[in-house]
C-alpha cells in the first residue's frame, strides 16, 4: 500500500498542470475502518473484524465532483462518513484544506477543532424520510446549524433560513411546517438546504437521489449542479447508480470490498476501464434503449464477505481474466496512465469494454 501512496502523491505534482487544475481540497491516504465482530453475552470478545474500508487513497480538487461507486457493502458510505469523522478511522490520514484552519489532518483534530471543521464539511443523506426530525419545523431543521455554531439567531436566523429555502427551490412561507407535509423530492431539498446553511467547502452526498422517483431525480441532480456552480462547492458523490455518477462526476473512483480498484477522470473510466470489475459493472447497467440489447457480463457468485475476504485480489473468484498470481498476491493501486489509477495485475495487457464498446488504443 505504501507503494500506492507514493504513486498517489507523486501523481498530483507530476501531472497536474497548475493553470488548468484546481488545488486539492481533500486528500485521503490509506484510510482504514475495521469494525469489530463481537460474540458472547455479558462477556464479549472480539472474534474478527469486518474490513469495511481497507486502505483507500484518493483526492478531490476544489469545486469538482468525485463519484464514489460500488455495490452495497463495498464501504463507500463508510468512507464518506469517515471523512466527516462520523466514524473514527482505524488508520489512515484525511488531509483537508480548511478555509479557517488551513491544511489539517482530520483524525488528529480535537473536539473544538472538529466543530470548526464540520462548518466546512457537510453531508446530504440518502433517505429524506429518516434524516429529518419529524418534530422539528423547517426553521428549526435548517436553522439548527446556524444556531449551534452561533452564526445567527432571532430575526437574522429567520432571514437566513428563508434565503436558504429559496435557494433550493422551496417557498420561504413553508418555514413553519413540519417535514411530513412535504414529498420525497421536497424533503431532499430541505436536506440540501440544511447542508448548505453554513456555506461549506465540501459536501458528502450519500446516495442523494436513490430514494427519489425518476422525474424528481432529474430535478435534484440539476439543483445540486446549480448550487455547485453558485457556491463553488466540492462534492463527494457516493452512489451505486453508474448513469447518475457518469452524469454528475468529474472524476470517478470504484470500490470493491473495502478497496479502491480504479479511479480516473469520468470519460476515461467509462470509455476505457482498466479494471475487470469496472468493466462488469458498466456492462451490467440495463441500457434504456431497446435496440441495444446487449448480453451483459454476468459475474458468478456474490460479493466477497468483508469479514472473510478471499486471498490475493478480492475480485479474483469472480473475475473472468484471473490468473494464478491473482489468487496469491493482492495488487497495489498503480497509476497506469496519467491520473488513471488501477489495482489489477493484468491491467496493461487486458483490453476491456467501455460504455462505447471496445476501444483499441
Amino acid at each position, binding site marked *: 500500500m505504501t507503494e500506492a501512496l507514493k504513486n498517489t502523491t507523486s501523481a498530483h505534482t507530476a501531472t497536474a498542470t497548475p493553470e488548468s487544475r484546481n488545488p486539492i481540497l481533500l486528500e485521503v491516504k490509506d484510510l482504514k475502518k475495521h469494525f469489530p465482530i463481537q460474540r458472547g453475552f455479558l462477556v464479549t470478545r472480539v472474534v474478527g473484524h469486518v474490513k469495511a474500508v481497507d486502505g483507500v487513497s484518493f483526492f478531490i480538487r476544489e469545486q469538482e465532483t468525485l463519484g464514489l461507486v460500488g455495490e452495497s457493502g463495498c464501504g463507500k458510505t463508510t468512507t464518506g462518513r469517515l471523512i466527516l469523522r462520523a466514524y473514527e478511522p482505524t488508520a489512515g490520514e484525511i488531509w483537508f484544506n480548511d478555509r479557517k484552519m488551513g491544511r489539517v489532518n482530520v483524525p488528529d483534530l480535537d473536539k473544538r477543532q472538529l466543530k470548526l471543521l464540520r462548518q466546512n464539511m457537510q453531508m446530504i443523506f440518502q433517505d429524506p424520510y429518516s434524516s429529518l426530525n419529524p418534530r422539528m419545523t423547517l426553521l428549526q431543521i435548517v436553522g439548527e446549524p446556524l444556531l449551534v455554531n452561533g452564526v445567527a439567531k432571532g430575526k437574522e436566523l429567520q432571514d437566513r433560513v428563508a434565503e436558504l429555502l429559496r435557494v433550493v427551490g422551496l417557498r420561504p412561507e413553508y418555514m413553519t411546517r413540519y417535514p411530513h407535509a412535504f*414529498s420525497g423530492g421536497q424533503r431532499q431539498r430541505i436536506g440540501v438546504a440544511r447542508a448548505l446553511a453554513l456555506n461549506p467547502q465540501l459536501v458528502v452526498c450519500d446516495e442523494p437521489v436513490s430514494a427519489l*422517483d425518476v422525474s424528481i*431525480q432529474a430535478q435534484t441532480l*440539476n439543483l445540486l449542479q446549480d448550487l455547485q456552480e453558485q457556491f463553488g462547492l466540492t462534492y463527494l458523490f457516493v452512489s451505486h447508480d453508474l448513469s447518475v455518477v457518469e*452524469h*454528475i462526476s468529474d472524476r470517478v473512483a470504484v470500490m470493491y470490498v473495502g478497496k479502491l480498484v480504479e479511479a480516473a477522470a469520468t470519460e476515461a473510466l467509462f470509455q476505457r476501464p482498466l479494471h475487470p470489475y469496472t468493466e462488469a459493472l458498466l456492462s451490467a447497467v440495463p*441500457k*434504456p434503449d431497446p435496440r441495444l440489447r446487449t448480453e451483459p457480463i454476468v459475474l458468478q457468485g456474490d460479493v466477497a464477505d468483508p469479514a472473510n475476504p478471499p486471498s490475493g485480489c478480492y475480485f479474483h473468484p469472480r473475475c473472468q481474466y484471473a490468473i494464478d498470481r491473482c489468487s496469491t498476491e493482492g495488487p497495489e493501486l498503480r497509476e497506469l496512465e496519467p491520473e488513471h489509477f488501477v489495482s489489477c495485475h493484468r491491467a496493461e495487457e487486458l483490453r476491456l469494454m467501455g460504455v462505447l464498446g471496445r476501444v483499441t488504443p
Partner: protein
Amino acid sequence: MNNNRERLVEIKNLQTYFFLDEGTVRAVDGVDFNIHRGETLGVVGESGCGKSVTARSILNIVPKPGKTVGGEILYHRKVKGVEQTIDLTKLAPQSSEMRNIRGAEIAMVFQEPMTSLSPVHTIGNQICEAIRLHQGLDQAAARELAIDMLALVGMPLPNRTIDQYAHQLSGGMRQRAMIAMALSCHPSLLIADEPTTALDVTTEAQILKLMRQLQDELGMAIMYITHNLGVIAQMTENVVVMYMGKVVEQADVDTLFYDPQHPYTRALLQSIPRLGQKTARRGAGQRRLASIRGMVPDPYALPKGCSFHPRCSQMIAGECDQIEPQMIEVAPGHKVRCLACTGI
C-alpha cells in the same frame, strides 16, 4: 400489437379504490390492457401511479381498505384442453377457485425478498407448501421438485440451500428462491413487481438473465413492473406507461422508446441520465437533465381534466384542464391518452 397472439388476461376498465378517512384514493382508475400468452409486458410508472395495485388486483390481494370497485379482469385458462374464461374480480379473495389460480396459474415475485419470505420457515418448507397445495404431491416428491426448481434458478448447492432460512441467503439468492417458488407450479403468468430494484447491478444482471432463460424454457407470460426504463428496454416486448392510476400510453417497446407520443412518456425518457451519453460527447455540451416540473399531485385532490396537465409542457389551456382525455389508437397497437398529441 401481437393481435395474432392468444390473449391470456384482459383487463377492462379496472377500478381499484382505497377508502381512507382522509378521502378516497383512486389508485387504479379505469385501466385497460391485455396480456398475451408468452409475452413480456412492461408496466412502468413512478411510485403511486397504481402499477403495483393493478398487479394485486389481478391476484385479488388488494390490501384493505382497498377494493376493486369496477371493471373486469378476464382470465383465459385452459383446463385439460378446454378453454374457460373467468372474471377474477367476481371471485371472492378467499374462495377456493381464486386460491387454485393464485400461486399456481398466476404467480408473483415481490420486490423485497426479505420481507416477502417467511423468516421462521426454511426456503424448502415454503416452496414445498406451494407445491403440495397446488399439485397434491406427497412430502418427499414435493421436496424433490423443490430441489429441482432451486437448481433450475441457478441456486448453488440446492440440496443444502433447501434447508436454510431466508436470512442465511444473500439478496440475489433470496430473489432466486422467490422465483423458484413462483415457478414451481408452472404458472401461465408471472407477475414480477420490481424484482430487481433492491439488488445491486451485477446481481440484477444475473436475475434478469435468469428470467429471460426461464421464459424461453417454460414459455410463461411475464408482467414486469418497474420504474427503471433501462430494465423495460432490455426485458419487455410491449409497454404500458401509467400515471396517477391511468394508462397514458401503450406501445411496443421500440415505438415507445423511439416514437413516444405522450408528453409524460417523452419527459420521462429525457429525464434519465443515460450511461455513455456524457462519455460519447467527451463531457462537452449540455450538462443539465431535462426534468419534469412540479411533482406528482396529491392523490386526494387530483387535478381536473388530464391529471398530468399541471406538469405538462404541451398543455392547452381551457382544454387539458377541463376535459378528461380518452385513449386513442394513433397507430396499430399504439395507444395514447392525450388531447394535445392526438388532437381529439
